[in-house]
């Protein structure tokens, strides 16, 4: 049996899991996922995190503890600084290995490879190859593993662009019949797709007859187009995507409503969503609902607001 590498089912899992899984499998490792989020996992994370950390970080720490209890050999906690030129991820990703190490006691060794393509790619590539060499693989095998990761990741992203959500893909679900009302649901993938903390938001909207559009379903050109009118480029990748999607969709004019989902106290979103709200308010064509999530959010309140919002959209369509 190969070494067991744990991957927390939280944060960038929703963006990159297929690539990560392919990478470690190709190196002969066994990939162990943390369990699906439960109240116990979240509570564990809340206990280990500092009060002010955002919900997704607290949840991540809970998943780390879950993996520790499963007795994995390593946990993959990469330091992902930047995934495209001249843009960063949120600061918490820059210090993630340290947050993990100093908040959650008794973790096994962390695979904290640094990915930073802010200036150029080759250094990150080298660190990934170094990571591969730790599994006793030859340089060639490391390169091959990277190649396989890229293929798997691309297949995943293509699937998302066809209108699947990460949960659809992971659970192997077929895409459902399109709803009649197109609703953009924008927010960090790790907030929208965790069935527990998002309270099944995407599925609920579908059940209420919505066809949902998320940033992952749009083309890079469309995101870019949505950012074109800005005075200054946004230096966060996820912020750029959220704002680009929001403005592109507003301009295209074929969504009936937009839901913004943010975690309580989210730094980047406090500014990005402010801009989105302002522009939508100026245009006055598409209704906007803003949902703030934290560990105290009650399901009933969220469902009521979603229902009211969908009713309103349907009513607007009828007249």
């Amino acid at each position, binding site marked *: 049996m190969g070494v067991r590498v744990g991957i927390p089912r939280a944060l960038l899992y929703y963006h990159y899991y297929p690539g990560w899984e392919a990478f470690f499998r190709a190196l002969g490792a066994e990939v162990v996922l943390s369990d699906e989020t439960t109240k116990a996992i979240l509570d564990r994370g809340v206990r280990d995190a500092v009060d002010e950390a955002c919900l997704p970080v607290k949840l991540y720490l809970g998943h780390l503890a879950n993996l520790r209890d499963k007795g994995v050999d390593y946990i993959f906690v990469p330091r992902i600084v930047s995934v495209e030129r001249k843009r960063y991820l949120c*600061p*918490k990703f*820059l*210090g993630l290995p*340290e*947050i993990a190490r100093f*908040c959650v006691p008794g973790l096994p060794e962390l695979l904290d490879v640094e990915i930073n393509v802010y200036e150029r790619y080759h250094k990150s590539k080298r660190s990934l190859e170094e990571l591969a060499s730790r599994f006793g693989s030859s340089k060639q095998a490391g390169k091959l593993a990277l190649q396989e990761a890229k293929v798997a990741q691309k297949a995943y992203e293509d699937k998302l662009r066809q209108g699947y959500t990460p949960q659809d893909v992971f659970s192997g679900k077929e895409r459902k019949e399109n709803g009649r009302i197109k609703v953009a649901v924008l927010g960090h993938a790790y907030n929208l797709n965790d069935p527990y903390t998002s309270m099944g938001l995407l599925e609920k909207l579908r059940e209420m007859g919505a066809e949902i559009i998320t940033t992952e379903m749009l083309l890079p050109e469309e995101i870019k187009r949505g950012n074109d009118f800005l005075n200054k480029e946004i230096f966060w990748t996820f912020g750029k995507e959220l704002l680009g999607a929001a403005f592109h969709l507003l301009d295209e004019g074929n969504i009936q409503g937009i839901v913004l989902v943010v975690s*309580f106290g989210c730094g980047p979103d406090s*500014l990005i969503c402010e801009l989105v709200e302002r522009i939508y308010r100026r245009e006055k064509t598409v209704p906007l609902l803003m949902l703030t999530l934290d560990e105290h959010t009650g399901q009933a309140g969220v469902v009521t607001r979603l229902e009211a919002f969908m009713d309103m959209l349907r009513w607007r369509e009828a007249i």
Partner: protein
Amino acid sequence: MKVTYPHMGLISIAFHGLLRDLGLDVLPPPPITKKTINLGVLHSPEFACFPLKVNMGNFIESLELGADTIVMAGGSGPCRFGYYAEVQREILTDLGYKFKMIVLEPPQERGILLEKIKELGAKRSWPGILQTLQTTWRRIKALDEIHAQSLRIRPREIVKGSTSKAYEKALIPIAEARTPREVSQGLRMAREILGGVPIDAGKKVLRIGFVGEIYMLLEPYANLEVERLLGEMGVEVERSVYMSHWIKDHLLYKSLGLAGNKPTKKAAAPYLKHFVGGHGWESVGDTVRFAKRGFDGVIHVLPFTCTPEIVAQSILPTVSREQGIPVISFSLDEQSGEAGFQTRLEAFLDLLEQRKKRKSFLAPL
């Protein structure tokens, strides 16, 4: 054209001097008051960090007084500050103000910092502008020096409040200087004024390091004047971050492609190996350095919801334990109450006093 800018501790004096010496008609924002904060909070995003809200209050008060141009700084992230100006411009526009916003971006971003300054100082020649920049740099260093000196004197003053009074007076000749030479003269005067405060030089005092997010460190209104408060309680405070450090790191080293502030980063390395935006890395590294220098404690301040400092906050308990230095973290914003703040401070000081007594009692054994 009536130019205004945001307040940020002594930087306001330097910024004001720069704009004035560039030949502009400067309208300084009124001093920060409760009204400023209320205005700022009312028109800012709820979860924006506190500095953005105070800026907004400054801008609105200045625009109401007739300012038509705002000079603001920018940045390239990942700290939110770099995008402040873009959001503030939209909010002020929606409020119906007519104004121009000039954003000074750091040079590595677009390489146009000097051009922007030249544009601002349109009436001045290049040599004149360079002299102004030199004056500004000296002024900033002088202000920083006087501030650091006041922190050393205050806990030892014989008449409570005499340091703060002298400090206010000492800043005037530095603020009014127009040339590098005048700044040097002003600095000498300022040193004399502060040096004239009667002190008890042999007094034993607690020493506390002050770390955290730069705005909260530099703007006394935002940190509830903790430096003065502690000083008057007989505590010597040393602030880890000064504007002159920031300028050296960001405007000099970075534009030359060099890494600034090496000792702090080296000290941080066992706990945090990478920058996390803002001053998160420095907060960790400076805490280690204060511990190594034998300080009695560290106070960490951050604006509520500041992600880089939350990263630091997640790491500081381990630093505190391993380096043997008590650390207290204050997350501040418009909701901060003075009474609660003071109570926590006093409790922290009690702890430090006890610790110090125990140490000196055990030392001979």
